[in-house]
């Protein structure tokens, strides 16, 4: 719900930013290719709708994903609280999927979802409600990447995806595996990730 998930993805994929980005319904799909020293990573990104009731659709998007970005808005404490819930759900989901489907390949291939916690709208520092340390601490406790970004100014946006790509390239074998980019309650985007050693 307006934490800037779509804006973040659009900044990364197209280098664009719109003040009034259309509200996402269901989810939107984007792709982008990034080269890191270890590999070339193709992101298939599912950018999901923000409103709470869309939560019930989320499993469809994060199923089989390899990375997730959970996004909150640093100027709204409420979004941070919801981001925390998302992180817990995703962690739980990961375990249960593996157990429920008894899919050992899944366990081997994707032992752990790469997760990133992102505080977006860092340009709104004057309206900040969530301190950097709070985000950092929660991310660290949960073994997540952490970054504050601004889709508006582009600050840290490419860096975020670069870090995720690096982690994916080293963490998973070069065969295709899912990547879920999960944003806060609002946005979870999942994408499949295709790694090809270049």
């Amino acid at each position, binding site marked *: *719900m*307006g934490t800037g998930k779509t804006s973040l993805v659009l900044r990364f994929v197209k280098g664009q930013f*719109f003040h*009034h*980005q*259309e*509200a996402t*319904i*269901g*989810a939107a*799909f984007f*792709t982008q290719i990034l080269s890191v020293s270890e590999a070339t990573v193709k992101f*298939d990104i*599912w950018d999901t*709708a*923000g*409103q709470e*009731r*869309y939560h*019930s*659709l989320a*499993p*469809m*998007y994060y199923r*089989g994903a390899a990375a997730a970005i959970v996004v909150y808005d640093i100027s709204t404490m409420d979004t941070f609280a919801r981001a925390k*819930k998302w992180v*817990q*759900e995703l962690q*739980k989901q990961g375990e*249960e999927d593996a157990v429920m489907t008894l899919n050992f390949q899944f366990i081997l291939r994707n032992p752990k979802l790469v997760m990133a916690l992102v505080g977006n709208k860092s340009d709104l520092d004057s309206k900040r409600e969530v301190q950097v340390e709070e985000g950092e601490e929660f991310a660290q406790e949960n073994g997540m990447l952490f970054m504050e970004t601004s889709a508006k100014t582009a600050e840290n946006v490419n860096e975020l995806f670069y870090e995720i790509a690096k982690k994916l390239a080293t963490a998973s074998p070069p065969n295709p595996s899912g990547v879920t980019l999960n944003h806060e309650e609002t946005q979870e985007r999942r994408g*499949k990730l295709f790694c090809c050693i270049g």
Partner: protein
Amino acid sequence: MFGPQSKMDIAFEWQAQFHILRPSIHARRANIIVKFQDLYGFTVEGNVDDVNVLNEVREKVRQQGRVWWALEASKGANWYLQPQISISQGIGLKSSLKLSGFVNAITLKKLIRKGIPPVLRPKVWFSLSGAAKKKSTVPESYYNDLLKAVEGMDTPATRQIDHDLPRTFPGHPWLDTPEGHAALRRVLVGYSFRDSDVGYCQGLNYVAALLLLVMKTEEDAFWMLAVLLENVLVNDCYTTNLSGCHVEQRVFKDLLAKKCPRIAAHLEALEFDVSLVATEWFLCLFSKSLPSETTLRVWDVLFYEGAKVLFHVALAIFKMKEHELLLTHQVGDIINILQRTTHHLFDPDELLTVAFDKIGFMTTNTISKQRKKQETEVMKELDLRLRRLNSIRTDEK
């Protein structure tokens, strides 16, 4: 509220439609992309072929207009307002129905599939959808009373609505103005109080916005929204866990497997869940995907024949691209094909011909049975999920 002389009426006067920048010969040669405003004021990007298609569509709309006028002249102004013809009954063949009524019903069904002329749309939709009847059951002042009652209210729904107003078709010459935002706000906030189970669900903003553009008066748009959510669509499409939407998606998957088995098999092999694209189609009733006139042509039929029309149209989009879809190897390619197709479907007849002639007959009865079947499954799944989420909360404590 906007009166008959408002800016909107002037901007969207039917006769003044299609402000297409006629491409010059140079543009034609270079086959460049041109930007133009469509009938309802949306900026559209397309190539010269698209512009030509739109010109043909405009001509067809004129012809349809003449057919409707001729019928009014021969059968009387409100000939289509047969009490027996309602959306829930389709061509309700009651024994009491006179032959002339039956003939009218058949004529009307065919006519509507060919499109209601934009100038007649508000009147025809309002009557045939059941909105007029719904409105007639409450006091005249209902809508204004509702607006007065909700004034100054602050709820999660109003906050989300306020957040979404500038994000609903941004850049539209009327919707994206203070006047447009205010009208859309009143319709959505009003409805959120009429039905607190629905409240406000994202997606309804697009639907209500388009209803405003068509109906021209805010109150009629409100009643169209009410009849849509309460009578036309299946229940609970937009309530807290979108269960109705989940059901429709599952029914759609079954129908695709039945009607387009090759596509369904191919997509399944690629682990592509059709709901990934179809969810938005169903929740926004195609308003975010199809060009405006094509969307409204779908709605013409939707308001007359009911929610199964959405399945027809969604199946048609896949069917039209069967060959291309069967050649895909990646999820991204599937999505690109479907998006490109929907965005360029400027000719409504192309879509609707496939939707009704090629997809074949589906009875409301069969679909109802499938919905029943899926409902149980969906409820089970949502319940399981809820329990899992609750267990997270318990873990926290």
